[in-house]
C-alpha cells in the first residue's frame, strides 16, 4: 500500500494571521480526512504566499496560496483535492524567492512539523551536538572564531570572542542567556526560528553552553510572541525527554537546562543589560558597562548573551556547513544573514543570503515591487534605530562595513519598504516618539531629549522659518548620541540624520 497523501498546513504566526488556522479547521473536518495525513508545518518564510497549503503524494510535493479562499464548497477530502489541483500548485523550492537564497540557518523551515524531533534529526539535527560533546571546549570556540560568525542581534560582535571571554572566567556558575526579545519593527527572523525550527535554537544553546561551561540557560522571550512561547516550551519538554537537555546529555557528563522567561512589553529589555535586570526581576533599566556581561552578568555571574539567530547558526556551522558559511562574504560581513523584507513590498518574507547584495538587488530579486504598485520612496534598514535610505541609494550594499560607512547598521536585518505616500517628517517624529515611549528613563538625553525632539519636529512641520530649530535638532541629536548609555538614546538620532541628509526638504513641511 502506498503511503498516505500528506497535506501541509502551516502553523506559524504570519500564516495564521491570514487564515491558516481556519483552513486547518475546515480541512480537518472534511469527510474522508482519515485517508490523508495532515502535518502542521512551519512557514517557508515566503510570507506573501501564505497561507501556503501543500500536498505531497508519492514524494511529489506541491503547494498553492489559499489566501481568502472559501472552502465551503468542499464536503470531502476529494473535493479539496480537486480544488487544490485547480489552483495550479507548484513546488515552492523551485521559485526564485527560495532558490536564490542561501539557506543554511533556515534550511529546515517550512519543510516539516517543528516539534517532530525525528524530522529534526533526519535533517542533520543534533548531529553537531553529538560531535561537540566529544570535542574539547576550546576546539568548539576555535571553530566558531574561525567561522567569522558575528552576533545577529544587532551589534555584530564576534561570537567566538564573546564565548572565549565567558569560557576564560574562573567561576563555578556561568549562565547562558538567549535574547529572544526581538523588538525591532520590521523583524521576525528570531520568531521564525522559534516557531518553525525551535530545536535548532535548543541545540545551538546547548553547544554554546557546553563550550563556555554554562549549566543553566535562559531564553528571554518577548510577550508579543505567544505562539513562539508555545512552541519553545513544548520543544524544551521534548528535548528534555529525549536527553538533549537535562542531566548527562546524550550520556556525556554535561548537564544543561533551559528556563523560558517572558518579557512584559518593554523594547529596551532587548538591550542585554536591561534584559538581565528584567530576568532578575527588576525594572528594565540599562546597566553601565563595564563590567561586561561576559565577566559579570546575570546574578553577578559570567554570562554568555546571544541572540536567537546567532545561536541557531552554531549547529550548521559545526555540521558540514562550516566552509559553505565562512566562505561567503569578506571582512566583518561573513556568512549568511537572514534579511527580513517587509512593509510595503509585494514579495515579503525571510531572505537568507550573503551580506554582499545591494538594496536594489534585494528588492529586484526578492521583493519585486511595492505592494501598492507605487514607486519606492524610502527604505529603513536595521530597525527603528537604523537609517532611511532614499530611492537613489539603491546601489548601497547591505554589508556591515557599507552601512557603517554611512553611519548606519545592518542591525537585526530588518528592511522596511515605504512607497511615495510616506511623510518623512512623520517618520522622523516617530523615531523620537518611539524613543520617548520606550526609553528606560535612566539617561536624561534619552528620556527628555526624545520629548524635546518631538516638539522640535512638530514646530518644523508648521513653522516655515526654521533655521534655528534645525540647528537645535542637530544639537539635540549630538547630545543624545554622545551621552546615552545604550543604543536607545544613542542611535535614535541615526534615522533622523538620514532623513535630513538623504531626503532634503522633507523634514520641514512647506
Amino acid at each position, binding site marked *: 500500500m502506498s503511503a498516505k497523501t500528506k497535506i501541509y498546513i502551516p502553523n506559524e504566526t504570519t500564516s495564521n494571521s491570514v487564515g491558516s488556522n481556519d483552513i486547518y479547521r475546515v480541512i480537518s473536518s472534511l469527510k474522508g480526512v482519515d485517508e490523508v495525513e495532515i502535518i502542521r508545518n512551519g512557514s517557508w518564510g515566503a510570507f506573501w504566499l501564505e497561507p501556503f497549503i501543500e500536498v505531497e503524494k508519492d514524494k511529489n510535493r506541491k503547494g498553492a496560496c489559499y489566501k481568502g479562499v472559501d472552502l465551503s464548497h468542499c464536503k470531502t477530502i476529494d473535493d479539496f483535492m480537486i480544488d487544490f489541483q485547480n489552483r495550479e500548485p507548484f513546488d515552492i523550492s523551485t521559485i526564485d524567492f527560495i532558490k536564490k537564497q542561501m539557506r543554511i540557518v533556515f534550511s529546515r523551515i517550512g519543510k516539516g512539523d517543528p516539534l517532530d524531533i525525528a524530522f529534526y534529526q533526519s535533517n542533520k539535527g543534533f548531529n553537531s551536538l553529538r560531535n561537540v560533546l566529544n570535542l574539547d571546549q576550546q576546539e568548539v570556540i576555535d571553530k566558531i572564531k574561525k567561522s567569522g560568525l558575528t552576533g545577529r542581534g544587532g551589534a555584530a560582535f564576534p561570537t567566538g570572542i564573546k564565548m572565549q571571554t565567558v569560557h576564560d572566567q574562573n567561576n563555578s556558575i556561568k549562565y547562558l542567556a538567549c535574547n529572544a526579545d526581538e523588538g525591532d*519593527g520590521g*523583524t521576525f527572523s528570531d520568531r521564525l526560528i522559534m516557531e518553525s525550527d525551535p530545536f535548532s535554537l535548543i541545540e545551538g544553546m546547548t553547544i554554546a553552553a557546553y563550550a563556555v561551561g554554562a549549566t543553566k540557560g535562559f531564553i528571554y522571550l518577548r510577550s*508579543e510572541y505567544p505562539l513562539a512561547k508555545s512552541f519553545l516550551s513544548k520543544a524544551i519538554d521534548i528535548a528534555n525527554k529525549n536527553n538533549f537537555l537535562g542531566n548527562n546529555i546524550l550520556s556525556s557528563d554535561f548537564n544543561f537546562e533551559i528556563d523560558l522567561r517572558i518579557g*512584559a512589553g518593554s523594547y529596551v529589555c532587548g538591550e542585554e543589560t536591561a534584559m538581565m535586570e528584567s*530576568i532578575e526581576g527588576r525594572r528594565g533599566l540599562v546597566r553601565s558597562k563595564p563590567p561586561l556581561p561576559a565577566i559579570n552578568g546575570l546574578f553577578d555571574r559570567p554570562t554568555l548573551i546571544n541572540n536567537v539567530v546567532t545561536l541557531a547558526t552554531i549547529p550548521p556551522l559545526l555540521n558540514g556547513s562550516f566552509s559553505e558559511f565562512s566562505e561567503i562574504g569578506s571582512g566583518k560581513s561573513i556568512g549568511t544573514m537572514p534579511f527580513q523584507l517587509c512593509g510595503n513590498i509585494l514579495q515579503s518574507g525571510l531572505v537568507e543570503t550573503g551580506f554582499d547584495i545591494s538594496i536594489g538587488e534585494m528588492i529586484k530579486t526578492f521583493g519585486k515591487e511595492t505592494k501598492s504598485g507605487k514607486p519606492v520612496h524610502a527604505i529603513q534598514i536595521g530597525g527603528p534605530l537604523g537609517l532611511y535610505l532614499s530611492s537613489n541609494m539603491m546601489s548601497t550594499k547591505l554589508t556591515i562595513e557599507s552601512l557603517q560607512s554611512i553611519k548606519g547598521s545592518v542591525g537585526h536585518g530588518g528592511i522596511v519598504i515605504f512607497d511615495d505616500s*510616506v511623510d518623512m517628517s512623520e517618520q522622523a517624529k516617530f523615531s523620537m516618539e518611539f524613543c520617548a515611549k520606550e526609553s528606560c528613563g535612566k539617561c536624561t538625553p534619552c528620556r527628555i531629549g526624545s520629548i524635546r525632539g518631538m516638539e522640535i519636529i512638530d514646530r518644523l512641520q508648521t513653522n516655515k522659518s526654521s533655521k534655528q530649530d534645525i540647528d537645535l535638532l542637530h544639537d539635540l541629536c549630538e547630545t543624545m548620541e554622545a551621552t546615552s548609555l545604550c543604543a536607545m538614546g544613542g542611535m535614535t538620532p541615526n534615522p533622523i540624520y538620514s532623513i535630513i541628509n538623504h531626503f532634503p526638504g522633507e523634514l520641514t513641511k512647506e
Partner: protein
Amino acid sequence: MGKVMTNLYEIIEPYVEIEGGLMPALHAIQEEEGYISKDAISELAKAFNYSNAEVLDVLTYYDDFTLEPLGRNIVRICRAEACQSLKSKELTDDLTSHFDLSLDETAADSKITLKEVFCLGNCALGPSVMINETVIGEADKSKVIKFLNEIEE
C-alpha cells in the same frame, strides 16, 4: 478572569523559590486576575521579601502589567514601521473612531481595551492587529470587528 476568592499565594507559589521569580509571578497574577491588585502587591512583597513600593516599582515599568482590570478582549494595533508603511495610522483612526475609544482606553461595557503595540513580528503582512493572542494580518476594520464578534458569541 480569576475566581472571587482566589488564593493569591497559590498563584505565585511556583515562582517564589526560583531565580528572578518576580516577573513570572507578576505574569501569573496578571493572567489569573486580569490585573495586579493592592492585595496582590502585598502578597508579592511578602513572598519575595520586598516592600510594597519595590513591587510597584517593578510592575509599573512594564506595559503588560496593569493596576486596573482591562476589557475582556485586548486589541493591540501595531504602530511600528512596517505597519506604518501599510497605513496603520489610518487603521488606528478607523478603529478608535469605530469603537469611540482612544488608545489605552477600555470600553464602558468592558468588551475591549484598545492599545498600541510596537511590532508583533508580523511585518510581512501588515498592518497587524493582535486580539488577545491572535494576530490578524492585512488587517482592516471589518476583519477586526468580525473577529471580535466571533469570539464574543
